[in-house]
């Protein structure tokens, strides 16, 4: 298991790995099969820990030698002391939590920095889908139908930035990726990001 070949690394994971300083303490909330943890441990010398809700995911991670506990963002963050980690990562998960605002507050408590990657519901394909088909967007990137999607709290990038203000944190860095995984230049105006960004990675600080 531990030496199983890795599939191509997810683009947002690559971006997150770039944002993390060497030899940091990192907690990945919703770490899945541990791809990001592995990347951070091997490339960044990170002390990388994870939380994952699915037993299969946890077993896979532990069998790879990663430190992962079975649990979720609602139940298992309270035990960690303030500032326990240099970075707390929530990749492609915030929109699937019951109370994104509360989760953000908890993440900011236990991490010096919080890294959030989210899909952008305001991406132009999604807008066209809704406008011309009159149906909730189903794309390669967001393949679920409305009735079985785990993503119960979708937002656009601008919506997310509003939330960061609401919970009182600052955006240290944002990397916005278009539909083919290219970075949209940092100088671009917000409306452009919000239209052409399919997903984004935010580095936040309280």
């Amino acid at each position, binding site marked *: 298991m531990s030496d199983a070949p890795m599939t191509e690394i997810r683009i947002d994971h690559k971006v997150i790995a770039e944002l993390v300083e060497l030899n940091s303490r990192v907690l990945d909330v919703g770490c899945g099969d541990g791809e990001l943890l592995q990347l951070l441990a091997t490339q960044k010398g990170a002390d990388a820990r994870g939380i994952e809700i699915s037993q299969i995911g946890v077993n896979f991670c532990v069998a790879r030698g990663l430190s992962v506990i079975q*649990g979720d963002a609602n139940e298992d963050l309270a035990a960690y002391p303030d500032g326990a980690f240099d970075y707390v990562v929530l990749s492609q998960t915030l929109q699937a939590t019951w109370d994104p605002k509360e989760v953000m507050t908890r993440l900011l408590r236990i991490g010096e920095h919080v890294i959030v990657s989210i899909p952008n519901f305001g991406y132009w394909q999604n807008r066209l889908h809704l406008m011309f088909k009159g149906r909730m967007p189903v794309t390669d990137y967001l393949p679920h139908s409305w009735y079985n999607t785990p993503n119960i709290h979708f937002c656009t990038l601008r919506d997310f930035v509003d939330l960061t203000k609401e919970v009182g944190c600052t955006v240290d860095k944002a990397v916005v990726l278009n539909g083919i995984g290219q970075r949209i230049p940092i100088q671009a105006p917000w409306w452009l990001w919000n239209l052409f960004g399919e997903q984004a990675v935010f580095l936040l600080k309280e």
Partner: protein
Amino acid sequence: MTSHDGDDLTAAARLREADEPSSPVIRFGKDRPLRLDAGVDLAPWQIAYQTYGTLNADKSNAILVCHALTGDQHVASKNPLTGKSGWWSMMVGPGRPLDTDRFLVICANVLGGCMGTTGPASTNPETGKPYALDMPLVTIRDMVRSQAMLVDELDIDTLFAVVGGSMGGMQVLQWVASYPDRLFSTAVLCAGARHSSQNIAFHEVGRQAVMADPNWCNGKYLEFDVRPSKGLAVARMAAHVTYMSDESLHRKFGRSLQNRDHVTFGFDADFQIESYLRHQGMTFVDRFDANSYLYVTRAMDYFDLAAEYGGVLAHAFQGSKTRFCIASVNSDWLFPTSESRVVVHALNAAGANVSFVEIDSPRGHDAFLLNEPELFTMIRGFLTGAAGVRGILPPALADDWEAHV
């Protein structure tokens, strides 16, 4: 041979194991007492153990296995009393997760036990008779202290891992608290940081069954050459129910009748489950000492790790550099997942390096002793990761038998 002769032979063998075990044993003289939590020094005393595999040149590949309530040191070797293979042969052995081609695996009989480590069935050197209730009460911490003295004797400074389930898991947690610098990693299976009220209640039922047997003789049965076998068997029957789950009992026995087509309108073992429990009770008394049962159940009852640290469990793990692997079983109602989560959260609060998984199995508490491929995969993976950081050889890759069971 009559069955009575057979009983005598078994009893004689069991008594022999208590003082002169067939396992290696280390004897500590009066100059090296074991300081007990009860406030007395036990001396002389002895500890019986088994080892499997070879210690490497750096002495960095030793794993200590802590056995559960009625287990013993024969983790992967034939039990001298029952003739059965070791109780964790699926976990410990060549190519197994605790790979004896790569690690030196040590397992010692617990203090208070009856397989060669000093316990109530051992001969009291002051009187020449078995200790019985003159043996001081022992705690989980005393057991761990005795194991640390054994590890010293084996000239091992730091253990690569300490592994145990149930009462063994309690010992593992106590190891972390008592000797934080002497263990690199730990695996705690189906255990908790304290014994719950419900668990104390079940133990009390068992102890009362033993003590209600007229053959118990206030603990002095060995002097009178009798055994409280019925009481001990009842204790085991009650305890055995707590090791399984409603679902596993239902699957295994349902309401099936034992070698009959109809109920007999009497108190014979009509149901298969009754017959099964009676069998469990009867075979248990052949291999276990009744007073030992009182002592080790009491040790579990007294265990409350947080209480030693001002009621804050995280303080027991503060600053720990040990890597933890915690596992529970979703059908275990003796040590439910919530007990493991308490430990996990305390470890998180202490900033410790911890992995935790809840194994999906209907088999209840005893699942950790059984063929649970997910558990094997997890332990193998955990030890592989830890061995990589420690710079020693990991367990071999999983056999086909394990992957496809």
